[in-house]
C-alpha cells in the first residue's frame, strides 16, 4: 500500500478541451477528498475547541481519561514488539526458504485483515469468557482475560497481526538471499548475518510496518470494545474512552481525546511519507 506519486512528464501539447477535462478531474478529486477526509478531521478539532483551550486542556485532567491514555500506551508497548518479532520470523521463513504450503501460510497470515474486528473480540470471549473453553479453568485459578487487560492485548495482537509480516515478505522476497548466503559461506553466524546483513537491507520496510502496526494498535476499537467490558479507569483504552464520553454527551471531552488520536494519525502519515521518501531515495 505504498504511496505512489511518480514524477509526471509533460510529453506533448494539449488542447484546451483536454486541459479543461484535466482541471475538472483534479477538482473532483480534491473536492471528494476534502469532503470525505478533511471535513471530519476539521470537525474533530472544532468540536474539541468549542469551549476554548481551557476546557480542552481540562478534559485531560480527568483521571479516567489519563488511565485510558496509559492503557493505550501500555497495550501498544506490548503488542508492537510482539508482532514485530513475529513479522520478522514469518518473513524470514517465507522469503528465504522454499517449502510446501507456503502460499497457504501467507493467506492465513493475512486472515485477520479480512475478518471483522468484532469477530476478533467474539472469539476471545468464546475461548476465555466465563462460559468459554478455558473459562472454568481460568476461574479456578482466579485469572481474568476477558474484561481485563490481557484480553485487550490479545484482541489488539489479533487485529494488528499481519502488518509487519505483510510489509517484509514481498520486500525480502524481492531482495533475494545472495548476500546472506555469502555471509554464511564466509563463516558468519546466523545472528550476525541477520543483524549485519539482513537488518540494514530491510530497515525502512520494517519501520514502515511498525508505524502502521502502532497506529492500528493504539486506535483499535471494535475488537477491544467486545473484550474490554468498559470498566472506567481500568479497561478503557483511548478509543473506548471517546465512546463513553460521547455517549454521555460530554462532547468537548470526547472530541478532545479524539483529537489526540487524530494527531497520532497525522504523525503516522508524516512518518510514513518520510519513510517512503527515504526508501525511494535508497532505490533510485
Amino acid at each position: 500500500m505504498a504511496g505512489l506519486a511518480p514524477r509526471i512528464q509533460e510529453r506533448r501539447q494539449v488542447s484546451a478541451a483536454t486541459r479543461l477535462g484535466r482541471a475538472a478531474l483534479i477538482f473532483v478529486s480534491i473536492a471528494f477528498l476534502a469532503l470525505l477526509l478533511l471535513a471530519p478531521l476539521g470537525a474533530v478539532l472544532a468540536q474539541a475547541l468549542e469551549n476554548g483551550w481551557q476546557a480542552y486542556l481540562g478534559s485531560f485532567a480527568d483521571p479516567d481519561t489519563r488511565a485510558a491514555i496509559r492503557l493505550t500506551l501500555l497495550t501498544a508497548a506490548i503488542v508492537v514488539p510482539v508482532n514485530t518479532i513475529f513479522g520478522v520470523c514469518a518473513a524470514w521463513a517465507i522469503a528465504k526458504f522454499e517449502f510446501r504450503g507456503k502460499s497457504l501460510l501467507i493467506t492465513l497470515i493475512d486472515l485477520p485483515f479480512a475478518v471483522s474486528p468484532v469477530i476478533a473480540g467474539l472469539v476471545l470471549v468464546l475461548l476465555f469468557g466465563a462460559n468459554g473453553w478455558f473459562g472454568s479453568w481460568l476461574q479456578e485459578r482466579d485469572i481474568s482475560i476477558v474484561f481485563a487487560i490481557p484480553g485487550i492485548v490479545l484482541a489488539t495482537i489479533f487485529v494488528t497481526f499481519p502488518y509487519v509480516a505483510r510489509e517484509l515478505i514481498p520486500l525480502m522476497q524481492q531482495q533475494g538471499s545472495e548476500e546472506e548466503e555469502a555471509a554464511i559461506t564466509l563463516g558468519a553466524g546466523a545472528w550476525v548475518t541477520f543483524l549485519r546483513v539482513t537488518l540494514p537491507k530491510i530497515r525502512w520496510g520494517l519501520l514502515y510496518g511498525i508505524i502502521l502496526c502502532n497506529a492500528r494498535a493504539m486506535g483499535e476499537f471494535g475488537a477491544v470494545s467486545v473484550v474490554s467490558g468498559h470498566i472506567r479507569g481500568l479497561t478503557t483504552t483511548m478509543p473506548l474512552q471517546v465512546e463513553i464520553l460521547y455517549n454521555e454527551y460530554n462532547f468537548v471531552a470526547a472530541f478532545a481525546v479524539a483529537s489526540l488520536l487524530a494527531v497520532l494519525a497525522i504523525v503516522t502519515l508524516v512518518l510514513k511519507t518520510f519513510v517512503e521518501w527515504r526508501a525511494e531515495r535508497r532505490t533510485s
Partner: protein
Amino acid sequence: MATWFRQPSILPGFGLTLGFTTFFLSAIVLLPLAALVFKTSSLTWSEFVGVLTDPRAVASYRLSFGAALIAAAINGVFGFIVAWSLVRYSFPGRRLVDAIIDLPFALPTAVSGIALAAVFSPTGWLGQKLSIFGVQVAYTWLGVVVALILIGLPFVVRSVQPALVEVQRDLEEAAETLGSKPFYTFRRIILPAVFPALLTGFTMALARGIGEYGSVVFISGNLPLKTEITPLLIVIKLEQFDYGGAAALGFIMLVMSFVMLFTINLVQAWGRRRLVASGR
C-alpha cells in the same frame, strides 16, 4: 528436515522461524477461529437456522452488505478518478493529497465515526445544508454508506495507482494518432489494463465494509431492523450472554470473509495471467 518438504538451503533458522510463525499463528488466529466454528457446531441445526433467519438478522445482512456494496461502487468511481489525477496530472499539493489518502488507515475508526456524525448530524455543518433538501444522512442507512466510503477509499486508490503507472503510454498515443477519441482510448486501452486492480480494490473495500464496526455505530443510529449492522448485532447478542447466537452470526461473517479473500486471490491471479498473455 526432509527434502520433500523444502528445498535445501545453506541459510540457517528455518526450523526456528517457521516453527515460531506456525505456533504464533495457531495460538493467536487459528485456535480462536476454531473456537468460533466449534461453538457454532454446538447449536442444533434448527437453532442455527433460527438465529440466521431472524428478521432482525436478515435486515442487518441487507444493510451491512448493501451499504458496503454501494460504498465500494462509489469508491470504485471516485477512487479511480483520484488515482488517475495523482498518477497522470501534476498539480500543486499533489504529494500532500497522495499522503492524505491513507488517513482512513491511520485514523482510529471511533474517531472517524464521531467526526462523521458531527459533520452530518442535522445540526452539523453539512447535515444542516443537506436537511434543506430533505436529505438526512446521520442516523439513517445513508450514514452507514458515508462511513464505509471513508473506510474503503484507500483500498481502491492504492490498488489502482500502481496499475495506472504500468499502463503503456505508447499504446494510448498510438490509438490517439490513429484517430481514437479520448473516451474510446480509455475504454479500450486503459480500462482493460487497470480493471483487475480496480476489481481487487473494490473487493477489498467491500470486504472491509461488511465487517466494519467502529466508524459505523456512531453515525448509523442503531435502530433494530432499520440501521443495525451485523457486527453490532453480534455485540448485542454477546451483551445478552447469547454466546450461541453471537457465534452463529460470527460464523456466517467468517464464511463471507473467506469468500471475499478467495475472490481477491482469484482476481489477482486472473490479472497476472492477463498480464502474461498480453506479453508484458
